[in-house]
C-alpha cells in the first residue's frame, strides 16, 4: 500500500527517487496483495473425544477465505472457533472493491469457499453478483466515524455537542482541523465515509441517486479540503496516523472504523487520545458478513453453518467485542460502555452501482485535493530490453492508456494530478 501526502498550499516538491524496478514494486503495492500470498491463520483445532453438537463436522475442515485485511484481528477468536467447531479458515487478503469484482466475475469461487469483507453492499450493487452468493451471516458491526485529537475536539466544541457532517465540513473548510481517510476506490472505510458525507451534505433524506451525486460535488470539495493523509487500507492509515501523531503537521483526526479508533485509544501509541465523533445525521456501519459462495459442496455448507452458528453465540460475540472493539451482532450481548449511549443513525446506502462508481470517480478526479507524484526513471543501460518496456507499459497504464495493472479499474492517473 502507498501513503501519499497531499499538498495544495506551498507545494515543496519532494522528489521521490525510485529506480524503475522499484516503480514496478510500487505499482504492485498500490493494489492489494495478489491472491496466493496467503497469510494463514494458524489455528489447529483441538482434539476432543466428546461428541459435539450435530452440526459440528467430525473431521477437521479448512475453508478458504478471500477477505478484507480488516478481519486480521479475528485470529484469536477464530482459534477458539476452530476448537469448538473443527472448522478452520485459511485467508488471502484483498481490498473490498477489488474482491467484490472478483466475486461478481465468478473468479473468487475458483479458489475460495467464503468471502469476508467489512460489507457486501458494494458487491450487491453489481448486477448478478447475488447469484454468486449462497448465504451470508453478519458477525459483528462497526460504524465508520471520525476520531479527533482531544484538544482539537474540545476547541471545536465537538466533545460537548455532536456535530453534523455539514458542521464538520464547515470546520474543514475553515481549516480548523485536518484529517486522514482511506482511498474510497480501494478501501471500504473510505468508501463508506464518502457515501455517508455525500448523503448527509446533499440534505439527508433518501438514498443518493445520480442527480444528487452531481449536485453535492461542490460541498464535498470543501469537506475534503482538510484531508491531508490517505492510504489504501484502514489499518495502514491508522499506522501512519500513529507515526505522525506527535509531529507537527500531522493530521488532527482520522476517519476510520470505530473499532480501529477504540483500539488506538486503548493502546499507548498516541500522543493524545482521540475523541470519537459520530456525526448526528448518521453514519454507514460495516457489518462483516461471513459469506458462503455458490457451488459449495455439502461438507463445506455444513462447516460454514457450524462456524457461523458458533460465531453468533453469546460467548463468541463477547469475545469479539473484547478483542476487536466491534459491536455485537446479536441482541443478547449488549455493547459495553466504550461504545457510548448515543443513538447511531444509519444513513441509507445507494442502491445503484452507477451512483457508487460516479461518486468514487468524482472523488478521485475533482473532489479530493490534487496530488503530485514525481517519478524519477532510471534510463541507464541496465534498463535495456524488457525492463524498460515494462516501465513504459506501466506508465502508459497509469496515464489511463491501454493495458491494465489493476483489476479494480480505478488505478490510473487522475485529472489534475501532476
Amino acid at each position, binding site marked *: 500500500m502507498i501513503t501519499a501526502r497531499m499538498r495544495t498550499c506551498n507545494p515543496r516538491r519532494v522528489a521521490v527517487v525510485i529506480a524503475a524496478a522499484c516503480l514496478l514494486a510500487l505499482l504492485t503495492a498500490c493494489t492489494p496483495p495478489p491472491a496466493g500470498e496467503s497469510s494463514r491463520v494458524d489455528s489447529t483445532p483441538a482434539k476432543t473425544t466428546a461428541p459435539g453438537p*450435530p*452440526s*459440528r*463436522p*467430525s473431521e477437521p475442515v479448512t475453508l478458504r477465505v478471500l477477505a478484507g485485511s480488516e478481519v486480521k484481528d479475528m485470529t484469536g477468536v477464530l482459534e477458539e472457533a476452530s476448537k469448538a467447531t473443527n472448522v478452520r479458515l485459511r485467508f488471502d487478503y484483498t481490498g473490498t472493491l477489488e474482491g467484490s469484482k472478483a466475486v461478481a466475475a465468478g473468479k473468487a469461487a475458483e479458489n475460495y469457499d467464503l468471502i469476508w469483507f467489512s460489507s457486501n*453492499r458494494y458487491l*450487491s*450493487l453489481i448486477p448478478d453478483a*447475488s*447469484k454468486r452468493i*449462497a*448465504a*451470508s451471516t*453478519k458477525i459483528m*458491526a462497526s460504524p465508520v466515524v471520525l476520531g479527533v485529537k482531544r484538544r482539537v475536539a474540545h476547541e471545536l466544541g465537538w466533545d460537548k455537542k455532536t456535530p*453534523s457532517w455539514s458542521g464538520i465540513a464547515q470546520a474543514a473548510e475553515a481549516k480548523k482541523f485536518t484529517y486522514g481517510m482511506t482511498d474510497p476506490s480501494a478501501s471500504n472505510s473510505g468508501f463508506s465515509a464518502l457515501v455517508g458525507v455525500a448523503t*448527509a451534505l446533499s*440534505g*439527508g*433524506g*433518501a*438514498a*443518493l*441517486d445520480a442527480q444528487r451525486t452531481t449536485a453535492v460535488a461542490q460541498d464535498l470539495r470543501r469537506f475534503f479540503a482538510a484531508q491531508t493523509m490517505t492510504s489504501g487500507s484502514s489499518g495502514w492509515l491508522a499506522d501512519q496516523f500513529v507515526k505522525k501523531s506527535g509531529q507537527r503537521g500531522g493530521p488532527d483526526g482520522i476517519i476510520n472504523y470505530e473499532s480501529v479508533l477504540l483500539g488506538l485509544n486503548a493502546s499507548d501509541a498516541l500522543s493524545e487520545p482521540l475523541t470519537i465523533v459520530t456525526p448526528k*445525521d*448518521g453514519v454507514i*456501519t460495516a*457489518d462483516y458478513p461471513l459469506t458462503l459462495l455458490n*457451488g459449495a*459442496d*455439502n*461438507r*463445506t*455448507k*455444513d*462447516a460454514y*453453518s*457450524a462456524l457461523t*452458528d458458533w460465531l453468533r453465540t453469546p460467548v463468541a460475540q463477547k469475545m469479539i467485542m473484547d478483542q476487536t472493539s466491534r*459491536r*455485537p*451482532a*446479536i*441482541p*443478547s450481548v449488549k455493547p459495553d460502555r466504550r461504545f457510548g449511549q448515543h*443513538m*447511531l*443513525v*444509519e*444513513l*441509507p*446506502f*445507494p*442502491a*445503484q452501482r452507477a451512483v457508487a462508481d460516479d461518486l468514487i470517480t468524482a472523488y478521485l478526479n475533482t473532489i479530493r485535493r490534487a496530488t503530485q507524484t514525481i517519478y524519477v526513471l532510471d534510463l541507464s543501460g541496465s534498463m535495456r530490453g524488457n525492463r524498460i518496456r515494462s516501465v513504459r507499459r506501466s506508465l502508459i497504464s497509469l496515464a489511463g492508456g491501454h493495458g491494465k495493472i489493476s483489476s479494480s479499474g480505478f488505478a490510473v492517473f487522475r485529472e489534475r494530478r501532476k
Partner: protein
Amino acid sequence: MRRIIGVALSTLLVLGMLGVGAWQLLGGRLPSRAGAASPQGASSPANLAAVRAVVGSEKKAFFADPDVKAIFARSGISVDVDTAGSREIATSTDLKAYHLAFPSSAPAAERIKRKTETLGVYSPFYSPMAIVSFQPIVDLLERVGVAKKAPAGYWTFDVNAYLKLVAKGTRWDQIPGNTSYPATKTILVTTTDVRRSNSAAMYLAMASYAANGNRIVSSHNETSAVLPAMRRLFLGQGFTESSTEAPFEDYLALGEGKTPILLTYESLFLDRQLRKDGSISKDMVLMYPTPDVLSKHTVLALTKQGAKVGELLSQDPDLQRLAAQYGFRTTNPTTFRDTLTKAQVALPPELMNIVEPPSYEVLESMIAALEKQY
C-alpha cells in the same frame, strides 16, 4: 402378536425408507457435486437419511431445533437446510441439489412450481406480515396519522396514510415537535430487497393494493399506475438485504438508529417473545398493517423424501406444536393459541383486514418493472 407384527412392519418401513434414501443418494440425485464424500452428508447421524432443504431464512431456527430434529429422526430423516431468499430459491438456486424447497409464500411457491416438477405441495403454517418499531417512533407515527390503536388494543399501521407521507418525501425531523428521533433521513419502512426476498414481495402486495384504491392490482394499466409510488418505497431505501432475518437481527441488536420501522413476519417477533431471551425490549412494538397479507409458507417436494418432510410438517402434531413455538400460525388455530397462552405471550389479534396478494403474473410483472429501475 399384532403388536409384534406392528413393530416388525414399522421396522421394515424404516429400513425400506433408508433403502430408498440410500438409493436416491447413491443414484446421484443429491451430493453429485465434487467433495461430498460421505453418502449421509457431513452432518447427519449415520443411521438417518439426509434430506436437504432450501428454506427462507426465517425458518432456519426451526429446523435447527434439536426437538424438531428428534421428531424427524423418528421417521429416519435428518433435514439439513440451506437458507436463501424465496425469490432466489425460485430463480437462481440449483434445485437439483435439494429434496425440497420451502419458500415463504404462495406466489413464490407458484413460481417454483412452474419451472420444476414437484411431487407434492404442503402449506403447514403461515404468518401475517407485521411492522415492528419502537414506542417513541410509534408515537411519532401516531402524530402523523400512520400508527393507530385498534379498539382491541393492538397497534395498526395505516398503509394508505403511510403512502401519502412517502409521496411527500417527509423526513423524520420534519415531524412537528419531534425531539426523540430528529434524523434527517426520509420516513421509510425498512424492507428486504424486493428483487430477491419474499417479505418485500408481500409488502409490495399490500402497498400496491392500497395505492390501487384498495383493490388488488390485476391489470397492466393498474401496474403502471401504482409503479411510481412503489418505486419510492423501495429505491428510496437504497441498499436492502436479501433475507428477512438479517434486518430483523439489526432491529434487535442495533436498534432504532439503523431500523426505526421494519417490515417483517409476525413469526419472527413472536418467536423472540416465546424464547424469552431478553431480545424484545419493553419499547419494541408490533404493529399490523392495514391492509395486511398472509405469508403462506409452502413446501414443494422435489423427491419422495421431500414429500415425507412436507407431510410430517403439516400432519405431525408435535411438529405443528413446535412450529407454533417459533411463532408460526398453524393450520389448526388451537395449537397456535395454546402455545402462546402457555408461554404467557399476549395472543395476537384475529386480523380482519387481510387481502390476497395479486396473481403470480401481476406480482412478477411489478417486481420485474421495479428491477429495471435499479
